C-alpha cells in the first residue's frame, strides 16, 4: 500500500494538464475530495475537471496557484 503512489498519479494528471496549456480555473472542496476545473489556454476550447482525493494533491494544486507557478509547469 503506498499513499505516495496515489498522490504521484494525481500530481501527474495535474502536471499533464498544465503542460498542455490548461490553467486552474476553479476549485470546489467537497466531502469527497476537491473538484478542480482546468480551462484550456485558447478561449472557448472547453475545460477539464479532476476530482483530487489525496491531501498532498489538494495541497499541491493550491500551492501552484498560490505561488503563481502553474504556468511555469
Amino acid at each position, binding site marked *: 500500500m*503506498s*499513499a*505516495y503512489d496515489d498522490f504521484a498519479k494525481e500530481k501527474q494528471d495535474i502536471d499533464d494538464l498544465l503542460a498542455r496549456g490548461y490553467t486552474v480555473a*476553479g*476549485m470546489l472542496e467537497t466531502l469527497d475530495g476537491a*473538484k478542480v476545473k482546468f480551462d484550456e489556454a485558447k478561449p472557448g476550447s472547453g475545460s477539464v475537471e479532476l476530482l483530487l482525493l489525496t491531501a498532498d494533491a489538494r495541497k*499541491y494544486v*493550491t*500551492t501552484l496557484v*498560490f505561488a503563481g507557478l502553474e504556468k511555469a509547469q
Partner: protein
Amino acid sequence: MADLSINLAGIKSPNPFWLASAPPTNTGYQVQRAFEAGWGGAVWKTLGDPIINTSSRFAAVNFNGQRVAGFNNIELITDRPLDVNLKEIYETKKRFPNHAVVASLMVEPKQEKWHEIVKRVEDVGVDGLELNFGCPHGMAERGMGAASGQQPDLVEAQTYWVKEVAKTPVIVKLTPNITDITVTARHAVKGGADAISLINTINSLAGVDIHTWNTVPHIGGKGAHGGYCGPAVKPIALNMVAECARHPEVTVPISGIGGISTWQDVVEFMLMGSTAIQVCTAAMHHGFRIVEEMIDGLNNYLDEKGLASVTELTGKSVSKYSNWGDLNLNYKVVARINEENCINCNKCHIACEDTSHQCIDMLTNADGKAILKVREEDCVGCNLCSIVCPAEGAIDMVEIDSGLPPMTWNERQQVVGGLSGAYSKAEVV
C-alpha cells in the same frame, strides 16, 4: 557569571526562582530556610479567614515507576490566624530584605473585605500581593478562589478593589479551570493588575481504589475533587502562559507556574514569556535544596549562550508560537532509522503499522540481518516512531525539501476562496 536578578512589575528578587503559595511557604521558619537554600522569592501560603483542613489531603499519580508524575491536593488556604502570619512575614522580610516576599490573599468578593486585608498585609512590609483567584476546591464552594476567578467581571472588580488601596504591585493568580485563560487575564489587566501568575491547580480526582472502591485520597470513605499539579501539568501551564504572553491585550509581566522541576523547565517558561517562575510540587517532592541545581544549571546555560542577564530570555520564543492556520503546509520531515543505534525492538514498525501510515518496512540486509527501513515518500513525518523508540539516536526526524514554496492553511484558503467562484456561478446557472 550571568546576572540572575529579576524585577517582576516592581518586585525585585535575586533570582527568578520563587516558591509558590502552598505548604512550602506556610510559615516564617520554612520561608527563611528556603531563602537560605537559595530561593529568590516566596509567595506566602494564601492568607484569609483561617480555615480547617481535612486529614489525608494529598495524593500522587505515579506513572511507570516515576513517582509523583502528578500531584493532587484538597488542602485549603492557611489555617493560621492572620496576625501570626503577619508577624512571621515581618520577621522574614527583616532578615531577608533583598528577597521577594509576596502575600497571597483570598477573601470573599466584597470591596471592604479586600480593603481590610490589603491594608493589614501591606503594613508589615510585603513586596507585593498575589490575589488567589484559582484554588479549585473547598474555597470555591464558598464563592472564593476559582469560583470568583472563573467570572471575568469578578476578576476585574476584585482586582480593581485591591488596586484602590494597594501600594505594592498586585499579581493576579489565574485558574486554569476555564476554557480560555486569556479572557480572565485580560480582565485582570483591565482591573489594573500589575502582573499575572498562572497556573493554579487543575480540577482532579487522583484515582479510585479498585479494591475498596474509595476515592484517592479519601476522608473516612468519602472524597471530593482536588487540584492537580506537578510535572504532568507542565504542558498545560506552558500553553496557557504562552497564550497570555502573545495576546496583545495582556500587557503585564507573567509569573509562570505549573510542573516546573528543573532549570530547563524554567528556561522554557521564561522563553514563553515569564519574567519569573514559581515552584510548589518539585519542592514538596525533593525539598528546598532542589533550587541549588536549578541555579547552577541556569547559570551554566546563560554562560553557554553568552547572555549577561536572565532577563534576556523572557519572551524570546513567544513570536514562534503561532496559530495553526499560519503554519507552513509545505514544510516536510521524514523519519530515518540509523541501523547502528537500532536495537531491533520493532516498536517503531508496530506504531507506524498499527496507528500511523504503514511505511516502516521490516527487511533483511545483505548480511542477513533484520533491519527496519522507512519508505520516506510515504512517511508523513508524524514523529510517532521517534517518540516510541527506546534507543537514543536510532531514529532521526530529518527535514526534506518538498520542492514547494511555503504556503499556510490561511493562504491556501484565500486561493480556494478565489477559485470557488467559478463553481458557484456554474452551479447557479
